[in-house]
């Protein structure tokens, strides 16, 4: 056993970026005034140290995985092979007491009703091989992007604030990846959303940026609504929020498969939002309003992949109900939902990408499309699991590279983002061009050398084995990928000089091009780790994190268990993939490279093409439809509620108040006139009468007085006689 030296430092991984964020928010502006752009080194240091720790963890786990004497894979073709890696590393603290901490506090009647939960909710971190790979990728990419930003953000008014937000993002993302419980996962999940909000809206004075930030957060919230419900379902079956406990309980009597299926589907809603899957993909292209390093880090490499990561982490929840073939929605199992949403997204975004002119938006749709690939890979269960994660890792590098490259292009062109105004940048920006080319070749899946080929081809091979219609749709999306990326390359870099003469392109500074070069190296080299063969390194390393299911259940799940040798090599899908990529490139070259086709004339000649182009250019009108229905609908409902409240609910209150005062005032007036006043008058009248009567007695004659006195005396005497004189 290698000592878990680096693992014991795992808590530092999210903490240091948080610290950097705190320092930059507190003292960033002052420091910036004093030491200039070097203030960004705080943020770089805040991610560089975690990067060292993360690679240390990765190295230690790699050596444990491969150094172990029991060598898996010797059984060759046997599909049944639990791949064992080193034990996950865990840390947890109690976060909140919930309910009876010991049965003793309960009355005997309710004691029996208390479930197994011990009343202490814990939160914690967990590192297994999947986490280790993600950590290494995120810290490295984030560090390179932070370095790149030193140059890119130079001269920005809120320079230190940018690095503070980026550091906060690193904290949140690392927390998300390290999460050992759903609560931490959700916290990281929401916090990356916050950072995304803050960074998309970094240039908040631009109204479009402010709107895009809001849209991103709210659309994500829609997905999180499902996520939250999924967590609730899990908590009250398991009952714990620990991810491992939830996965272990899935399918048992406590957590029956149909609830597992529903929980999985709900959690997937969160992934749909975060990973910009159809139908919640609309926020990601708008998110390009943020500075380009943000697009590279958050909206390409890491945050948007969080949904894929989450689905990978919990895929037991999809595999277990798949075994029982439990339908969740419209006759589909939860696993099939993941698969179909993924493929729809891949095709939809791939087609839209062809018709966009903004360089960043093309890349954004490409990201959506690639996320769809990862998702449908995971949606094939065990067969595609490693492929999906592998593609996540390779994609992070080459898409970060492409975004940073596009940032370099935009930087060099003085802020211009419209590709139709660019051209001929190959000569003006050689480093950018060559690194960008590496990224493009990786993305389009050009064979042999580039990472994207190996990871994407594995997905295609898996889908060929599991679901052929999905395979063909995937190949169509791959064709689109090559087409739009080819178009981008030709429009931007080919030709002799920038089409728009106002653009005087120049190469970016070293601080930007060096990260590009490093990313380019990874975009090429990383794929070799996943080459199919007897001993597929990726499969062996990641396989231990894959869902573990019982042997008898295997036949029901497509593809069986994870095969340590990877997907069996198949010639047909490989050829189709190569042809799809080749066709895409060829078509791009014909139209935009050699310009053999005049697009405007073609559109005039064939109306359906013009029509299709219009639909794609407008992104299938999703924004318009959502605006007309959900946005308008909610606002109208809100306005309706507001008016209802003002005029009906409060109206009734005021009416009651008014009526009460009226009725009471009326009654009071009557009472006043006839009773209160009447009584007063009555007393007055009575006194008057009494007075008159008494006045009559006052005659002034002595004999009258004597007679009156005698009468009274006689009356008293009579009274005494009658009453018996007791009371005197």
């Amino acid at each position, binding site marked *: 056993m290698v000592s878990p030296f680096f693992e014991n430092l795992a808590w530092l991984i999210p903490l240091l970026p948080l610290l950097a964020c705190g320092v930059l928010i507190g003292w960033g502006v002052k420091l910036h005034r004093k030491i200039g752009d070097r203030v960004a080194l705080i943020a770089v240091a805040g991610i560089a140290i975690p990067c060292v720790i993360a690679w240390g963890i990765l190295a230690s786990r790699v050596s444990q995985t491969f150094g172990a004497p029991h060598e898996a894979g010797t059984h060759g073709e046997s599909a049944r092979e639990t791949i064992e890696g080193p034990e996950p590393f865990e840390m947890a603290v*109690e*976060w*909140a*007491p*919930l*309910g*009876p*901490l010991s049965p003793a*506090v*309960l*009355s005997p*009647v*309710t004691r029996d*009703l*208390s*479930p197994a*939960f011990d*009343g202490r909710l814990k939160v914690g971190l967990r590192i297994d091989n999947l986490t280790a790979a993600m950590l290494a990728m995120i810290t490295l990419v984030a560090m390179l992007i932070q370095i790149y930003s030193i140059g890119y953000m130079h001269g920005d008014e809120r320079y230190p604030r940018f690095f503070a937000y980026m550091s906060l993002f690193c904290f949140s993302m690392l927390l998300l990846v390290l999460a050992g419980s759903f609560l931490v996962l*959700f*916290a990281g*999940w*929401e*916090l990356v959303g*916050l950072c995304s*909000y803050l960074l998309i809206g970094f240039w*908040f*004075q*631009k*109204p479009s*940026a*402010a*709107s895009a*930030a*809001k849209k991103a*957060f*709210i659309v994500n*919230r*829609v997905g*999180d*609504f499902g996520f*939250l*419900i999924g*967590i*609730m*379902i899990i*908590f*009250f079956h398991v009952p714990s929020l620990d991810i491992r406990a939830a996965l272990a309980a899935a399918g048992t009597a406590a957590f029956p498969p149909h609830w597992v299926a529903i929980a999985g589907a709900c959690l997937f809603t969160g992934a749909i939002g975060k990973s910009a899957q159809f139908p919640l993909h609309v926020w990601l292209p708008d998110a390009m309003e943020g500075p380009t390093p943000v697009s590279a880090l958050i909206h390409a490499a890491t945050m948007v992949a969080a949904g894929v990561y989450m689905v990978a982490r919990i895929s037991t929840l999809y595999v277990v109900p798949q075994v029982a073939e439990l339908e969740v929605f419209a006759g589909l199992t939860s696993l099939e939902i993941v698969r179909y949403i993924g493929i729809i997204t891949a095709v939809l975004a791939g087609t839209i990408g062809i018709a966009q002119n903004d360089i960043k938006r093309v890349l954004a749709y490409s990201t959506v499309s690639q996320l769809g690939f990862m998702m449908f890979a995971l949606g094939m269960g065990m067969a595609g699991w490693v492929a999906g994660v592998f593609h996540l890792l390779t994609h992070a590098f080459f898409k970060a590279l492409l975004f940073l490259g596009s940032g370099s292009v935009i930087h060099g062109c003085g802020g211009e983002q419209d590709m139709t105004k660019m051209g001929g940048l190959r000569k003006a920006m050689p480093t950018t061009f060559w690194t960008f080319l590496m990224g493009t070749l990786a993305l389009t899946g050009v064979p042999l050398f580039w990472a994207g080929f190996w990871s994407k081809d594995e997905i295609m091979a898996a889908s060929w084995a599991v679901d052929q219609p999905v395979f063909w749709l995937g190949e169509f999306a791959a064709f689109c990928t090559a087409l739009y990326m080819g178009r981008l390359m030709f429009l931007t870099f080919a030709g002799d000089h920038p089409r728009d003469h106002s653009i005087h392109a120049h190469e970016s500074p070293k601080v930007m091009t060096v990260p590009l070069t490093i990313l380019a190296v990874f975009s090429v080299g990383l794929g070799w780790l996943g080459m199919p063969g007897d001993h597929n390194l990726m499969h062996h390393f990641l396989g231990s994190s894959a869902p573990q299911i019982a042997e008898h259940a295997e036949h029901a799940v497509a593809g069986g268990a994870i095969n340590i040798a990877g997907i069996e090599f198949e010639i047909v899908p490989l050829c189709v993939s190569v042809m799809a990529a080749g066709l895409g490139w060829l078509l791009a070259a014909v139209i935009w490279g050699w310009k053999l086709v005049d697009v405007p004339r073609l559109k005039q000649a064939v109306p359906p093409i013009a029509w299709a182009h219009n639909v794609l250019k407008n992104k299938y009108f999703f924004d318009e439809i959502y605006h007309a229905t959900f946005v308008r609908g*909610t*606002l109208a409902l*809100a*306005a*309706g*509620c*507001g*008016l209802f*409240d003002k005029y009906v*609910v*409060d109206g009734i*209150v005021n009416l009651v*108040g008014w009526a009460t005062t009226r009725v009471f005032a009326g009654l009071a007036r009557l009472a006043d006139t006839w009773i209160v006043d009447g009584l007063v008058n009555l007393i007055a009248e009575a006194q008057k009468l009494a007075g008159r009567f008494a006045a009559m007695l006052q005659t002034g004659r002595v004999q009258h007085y004597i007679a009156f006195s005698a009468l009274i005396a006689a009356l008293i005497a009579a009274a005494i006689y009658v009453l018996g004189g007791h009371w005197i």
Partner: protein
Amino acid sequence: MILSVLLALPVVGLVIVLFLDKERHVRQIQGVAIGASLAAFVWSIFMCMAFATEPSRGPMAMRLEYQAPWIPSLGIGYHVGVDGLSIPLIVLTTALSLLSIVYSLRITVRVKEYMAWFLLLETGMLGVFVSLDFFLFFGFWEIGLVPMYFIIGVWGGPRREYAAIKFFIYTLVGSLPMLLAILACYFSMPEPTFDMVKIMQANPMAGAGVKAALVFWAFFLGFAIKVPLWPFHTWLPDAHVEAPTAGSVILAAILLKLGTYGFVRVILPMFPEASARFADYMAILALISIIYGALCAMAQSDLKKLIAYSSVNHMGFVILGVAAVAARGGVMASITTRTTALNGATLQMVTHGIITGALFFLVGVIYDRAHTRNINEFGGLAKQMPLYAGIMMFACFASLGLPGLAGFVSEFFVLTGSFSSYTLITCLSAIGVIITAAYFLWMIQRVFLGPLKERWADLPDMDWGEIVATAPLCVAMLVIGVYPKPLIAVMNGPLTAIVDHVTRLAGLG
């Protein structure tokens, strides 16, 4: 005795204030008011320590109890005491009273009366939280009403008289049936008494009779108006809009909690069977409050009204948690889920107090400068007032339930706890979380983002007094959000006991 001193401290300050000259001694009046509220705050911290050191005599037992006969022939006693349910609310009250008085130093009109009313208000609110005798409870309940009536009516906005009267009458309409219900409890006891602990133990309203139902609904009405629960909420926006800043803060942060406190202290433990009978209605009203409150908030263009409706929205979660405790249905409901819901509901009282208190302070900040609260008139203020924008966004994100900040913890526990009691209603309530995000972010966009409007190009950022009033609240939001264990650990014991009590008496499975 500790609690009696706590009640007396603001009154002592009040008496001193009354003896000072209202024109020559303005500074001294302010000093005394701050001193008295600071003393009460420090004393409440001391009370926490005394509470922690006193050994517990059982899960439902009160601590720091003091009992003395008052009018023994009528069964009225002076009985005060605290448990884990009231402790956090008492500290919240003393803290926010202190901050409100600090913030109110900018009041220049009739300072003497203002401070006097504020101190009386503090005693009234504290009294409700410590009373264990219904006579006392009702007395303090009504005492809290009068100062707020004057604070709104004298120092309020243009429609202050309407709002003050509406607030006063509406609450009074609720207290009248409550008084009758208290008397009903009194006469139902074998030996008539107003002692709340005894009433709770005796459970005089057992059974499913009409009387129990009437008493339940009478209490319900009194508390629901205070919460306020839909459809009894319309006094709230008016009162908030017209009240001066500190008045709004106290109103939202503390006075509303008197109602929810009543639900947890009175309705659940004293009428467990009736609560179980009518829990479904409570849950439905809570759901309506959540969704409807959020939608109404979205429709507002007055910043204060928006936050007032957000209170309706957030207080709905408290009632949802209360209803979940007593729910009869629910396949998976267990003592753990019910306690989780009640923990969340009680925590929501505290977190909403902190967050909404801060939000009202912050609205006051902008109103003092711009003399308008109309969201649509602002724009781009983040450029002009970066600190203000930062703190405001912090508080808004806390309110919309961002993990790591206080609001998330309580709403999360209410939702997870209620899920097993009311699956559908809880899922629908969770939609409120989306709408909440939408209206807050929309407000932020219209007020802070976009290009700065010329009109606001000379607004100064927050001053020290404003920072002092809001910063402690922001720190509290962060601390509770990151590590709620210490706070929940205080509440969990008695709340578990209440759930246990309700579950047993109402025969819930």
